[in-house]
């Protein structure tokens, strides 16, 4: 018997956790001598007050949708993939190779090719820890952390020693050809009469991310494989008894997870920078953890949480620009969200359960 009604479970608990995180963030802003209300206003103005702001918010949100979905899929199989950052880095490598080596005739074909290669690179980077977990019992959290560092070293090596154009100083690839330039939201919305900021980096990848949300929802709740993943996540022994192979599920869930994280690169590498630079991921792989926790590993929740974090990211950049609050405020908020919605979940849940129990007794 569930103690709490479903709406409380799905909406109330995350909302209270979020509120706690927001209050603490406000106190932090207050403590460093700034006005939290004014800061919030500035963030809303900067991130949502113009199509330019929206363009950035949606651009960041696109990154977080991919990484949030990646963490969510792994969560459903009760696997904690901290390696989204490394998988996204490798995805960037895949995108760079796809764009630089193959002369695509049109951006749409280029995008497809980039998605395939980015996904494949990310999937391979997740498959190794998955294999080690499934076959050799090495803890996936530790191996994915290690793979983040190894990915950074690989990327560093590739950019400095292999992909850097001759004579260039900074460790980055050459610019991608004009043919693989992805249409921005401005280009997409102009034909239907909506004017959108030209300078903002939000691009067609957003649509790919939304499609990915729908596909993940279909996969998890409407297919046999998704059922097996969830069953395995709920109880390994029951899943085994039902004939579900732990090795197979661990591998498949992590490969999908890695591919999703890798696909983030079509947004930040192909859509925005149009070349691969060091630290292209900017921690988006880790924000995926906060997004997945807040979205309760549901694609719709991930979608909403990604937009919220996109807002925080762009709003935080505006704050750093206009006030003395550094960008790192976002890292603090992200930490508080992970702490309250993830680790301290029971702190919110236990008293709520007690309240609902008391209410039910009175009702009888």
């Amino acid at each position: 018997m569930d103690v709490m009604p479903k709406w409380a479970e799905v909406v109330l608990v995350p909302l209270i956790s979020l509120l706690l995180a927001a209050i603490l963030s406000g106190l932090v802003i207050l403590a460093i001598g700034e006005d939290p209300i004014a800061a919030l206003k500035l963030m809303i103005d900067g991130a949502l007050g113009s199509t330019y702001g929206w363009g950035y918010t949606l651009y960041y949100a696109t990154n977080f949708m991919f990484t949030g979905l990646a963490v969510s899929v792994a969560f459903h199989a009760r696997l904690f993939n901290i390696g989204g950052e490394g998988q996204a880095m490798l995805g960037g490598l895949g995108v760079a190779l796809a764009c630089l080596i193959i002369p695509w005739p049109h951006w749409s074909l280029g995008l497809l090719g980039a998605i395939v290669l980015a996904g494949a690179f990310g999937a391979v980077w997740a498959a190794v820890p998955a294999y080690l977990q499934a076959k050799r019992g090495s803890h996936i959290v530790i191996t994915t952390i290690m793979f983040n560092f190894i990915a950074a070293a690989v990327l560093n090596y590739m950019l400095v020693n292999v992909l850097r154009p001759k004579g260039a100083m900074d460790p980055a690839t050459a610019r991608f050809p004009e043919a693989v330039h992805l249409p921005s939201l401005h280009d997409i919305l102009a034909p239907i009469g909506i004017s959108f900021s030209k300078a903002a980096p939000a691009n067609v990848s957003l649509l790919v991310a939304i499609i990915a949300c729908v596909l993940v929802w279909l996969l998890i709740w409407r297919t046999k494989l998704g059922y097996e993943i969830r069953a395995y996540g709920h109880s390994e022994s029951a899943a085994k008894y039902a004939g579900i192979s732990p090795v197979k599920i661990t591998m498949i869930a992590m490969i999908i997870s890695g591919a999703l994280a890798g696909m983030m690169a079509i947004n930040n590498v192909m859509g925005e920078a149009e070349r691969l630079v060091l630290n292209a991921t900017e921690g988006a792989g880790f924000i995926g953890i906060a997004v997945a926790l807040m979205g309760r590993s549901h694609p719709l929740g991930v979608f909403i949480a990604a937009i919220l974090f996109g807002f925080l990211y762009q709003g935080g950049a505006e704050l750093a620009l206009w006030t003395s609050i550094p960008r790192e405020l976002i890292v603090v908020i992200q930490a508080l969200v992970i702490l309250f919605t993830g680790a301290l979940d029971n702190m919110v849940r236990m008293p709520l359960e007690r309240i609902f129990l008391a209410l039910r007794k009175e009702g009888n």
Partner: protein
Amino acid sequence: MDFFTLIQILDATVRLAIPLLLACLAGLFSERAGIFDIGLEGKMLAAAFFSAAIASMTGSVWIGLLAGIAASLFLSGVHGLASITFRGNQLISGVAINFLAAGMTVLIAQSWFSQGGRTPSLSGAERFNPINFPGALTTTNEVKAASPLMQVYSELLSGHSLLVYVALLTVPMTWWLLYRTRFGLRLRAVGENPAAVDTAGVSVVGLRYAAVAICGILCGIAGAYLSTALQAGFVKDMSAGRGFIALAALIFAKWRPWQALYATFLFGLFQALELRPDVIEAVIGMKVQGQFLGALPYIMTVVILAGFVGKAIPPRAGGEPYVKER
């Protein structure tokens, strides 16, 4: 490569291995009691900032050290609250602590000092300065000309800060505490089979909080070492993945104190060699990529975890919250 270069590299190894060693032992206490801690990195970073900041404000490195330990203990408290009291996910809590430290240190540094997320440079009594043994030579030229034994004495053994010697002493102390005291026995038991400890009438919660607190103190010293001894002041993200290398060393050492010493010194050697590519080239006759050496601890950890070189079995109850009644 001459003898003096070797001594110089070993000297750098000691200096770079010390924060890894302290963090590794910190993790050892926590994980031996059944609490996974991937927040070592964050605790070190927070301690590094607060010890440098307070040392700079008060002019005393000792008050700085205490502040660093306090900051690290606070984060340990958060981790304990989440993973022991509220039986939350210990890994997620660790991730949150790492980000909390990464963000808060820069935020507070900017608010207090307005120097782009760093503290002012420390000097004099604001730092742990090198201790020179009696009779030890101090200038590089003098040491270079001395006999090999004198070189070892002056360059390798002498001239480290107090915290280096403290950290080295921590190893036998940890061994003694874990394997020769009642507390140690119970601490190890609570990581393997908490129900048995509970049945014996010993508080599982109390033991685990004690372990997490020891972890906090050791991480605090490690962080203070980074900003007040190894370097002179705090810079953003200065822990630079050391908490994770320490975690790798802990697995490498299979959760044992003496082996932790060897593992951290091995990883310290890699870090020292990364800074001296010329030496590697001279010794093995070919160029080794710096990135490869930097990634070597991580690669080795994966290989070890995969069980290709001996099997690393973590404490059995690690990562699971203890529920008294089922």
